């Protein structure tokens, strides 16, 4: 059964149809667009001012320009990437439209591809203005990271999609009762992936956990770049390897959960 869900037949047209569906929704609702920008802006301002304060009173580590702002912006890529994926999926559940999609020729892989594209679109709508504000307020230019930013972005997006795919599977299987998972799951990564501090701060046993999570390599890589001015390609490759494993595991879990949803009859309900 998993084979029929994982079918290799792929239509770019059906992916386009789903992207259009989400784009129409975004266009029709200014609060949805505002929400994409509002919280990342608040976060960036809060951490930016904190960095200013600590810089004036702290040691050499915090005096390095932009460590906190860089961390919060990269964290937002990770968090907003997953949220962008999961919210688009939740929109189908809010609209009671999931059954219409699951009985249409839309393949799960096409559905996921559309959600991935929308997570990038939603992220860019939120992040571009925020990165410009970071330049204006704190003189921190995320775009100046150049190729490193591409490597950071790609790895963080891969992780966010993996988590988004897994959450979508749980929602299909368990309905809206699992909605809070979509909003909170990424916060488990916040302390463990060492967004704002080096991995060495963690107790030894938690360092093993941290190094098993791809974003840890990205945040360590960012600190290496901003503090030591070194781009650690080795860290990015390790992150990519872990991401490949995570993405494969999340896709497999999604297909198993979808299969289970068909057995349990939850595709028609989508409710509590």
């Amino acid at each position, binding site marked *: 059964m998993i084979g029929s869900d994982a079918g290799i037949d792929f239509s770019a047209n059906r992916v*386009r149809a789903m992207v259009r569906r989400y784009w129409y929704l975004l266009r029709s609702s200014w609060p949805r667009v505002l929400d994409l920008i509002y919280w990342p802006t608040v976060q960036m301002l809060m951490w930016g001012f904190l960095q200013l304060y600590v810089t004036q009173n702290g040691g050499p580590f915090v005096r390095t320009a932009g460590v906190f702002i860089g961390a919060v912006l990269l964290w937002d890529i990770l968090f907003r990437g997953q949220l962008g994926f999961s919210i688009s999926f939740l*929109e189908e559940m809010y609209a009671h439209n999931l059954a219409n999609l699951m*009985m249409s020729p839309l393949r799960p892989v096409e559905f996921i591809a559309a959600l991935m594209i929308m997570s990038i679109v939603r992220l860019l709508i939120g992040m571009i203005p925020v990165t410009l504000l970071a330049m204006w307020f704190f003189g921190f230019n995320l775009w100046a990271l150049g190729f490193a930013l591409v490597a950071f972005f790609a790895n963080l997006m891969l992780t966010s999609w993996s988590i988004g795919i897994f959450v979508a599977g749980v929602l299909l299987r368990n309905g809206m009762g699992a909605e809070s998972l979509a909003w909170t799951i990424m916060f488990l990564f916040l302390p463990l992936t060492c967004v704002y501090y080096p991995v060495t701060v963690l107790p030894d046993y938690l360092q093993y956990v941290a190094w098993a999570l791809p974003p840890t390599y990205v945040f360590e890589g960012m600190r290496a770049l901003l503090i030591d001015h070194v781009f650690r390609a080795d860290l990015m490759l390790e992150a990519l390897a872990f991401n490949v494993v995570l993405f494969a595991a999340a896709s497999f879990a999604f297909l198993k959960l979808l299969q289970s949803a*068909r057995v349990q009859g939850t595709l028609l309900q989508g409710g509590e």
Partner: protein
Amino acid sequence: MDAQNTPAIAVDRLVKLYKGVAAVDGISFRLPPGSITGLLGGNGAGKTTTIAMILGLVTPTAGTVSVLGAQMPKERYRVLHRMNFESPYVALPMRLTVRQNLSVFAQLYAVADIDERIAGLAAELELTEFLDRPTGKLSAGQKTRVSLAKALLNRPEVLLLDEPTASLDPDTADWVRTRLEHYRREQGASMLIASHNMNEVERLCERVIIMKKGRIEDDDTPARLLDRHGRATLEEVFLDIARGRGEHREAAQ
């Protein structure tokens, strides 16, 4: 089996258990191409679960379902583009306009000449003036017509309907039934209609399957059902079966 003899829907000893309780309990039927069949039964009789298994949304516990020769849900992608479904209980996104909703689904179903098809359906279902309104702002009757338009976009050979006229006023309900009759005549489509509305079933269906507690209690043409149960209307037949009067009568005889 050639295409003409392939049943539109073939259900064989179909069972669906939820935590050991049978929602559908060993039912079998075959619907020939071009037929309209009514699926009757009280709440919890197993109609919606049966339709969900035909659509490939629910995996049977035992038995088989095939649509146009494809086993469901295993081979669903062979036939999903040739079938469709309409129900007032499965909504379309409310914030999207009618045109946007229809155009998204038309693209999902690989409909050719999408704009032309939407314009044609809108004219036929009297939706033209609502095409650029948000779907959520329409009345219940208008939403039903939009759902029907979505269900007809791909000119389905097999159309499943779950209480297609629920919550509609008699005039709109009659209008919907007329459109369904036209569609069957023009396209030769097969339809399976789950309904609580006996007048609807009597008018549209040449065959009626009555379910109770997951089983098929009776299955025949409306005329033969009336005759066999000695009743004047399908509603009386339905009530006899729902309340077990038929069994009492047989026992007394």
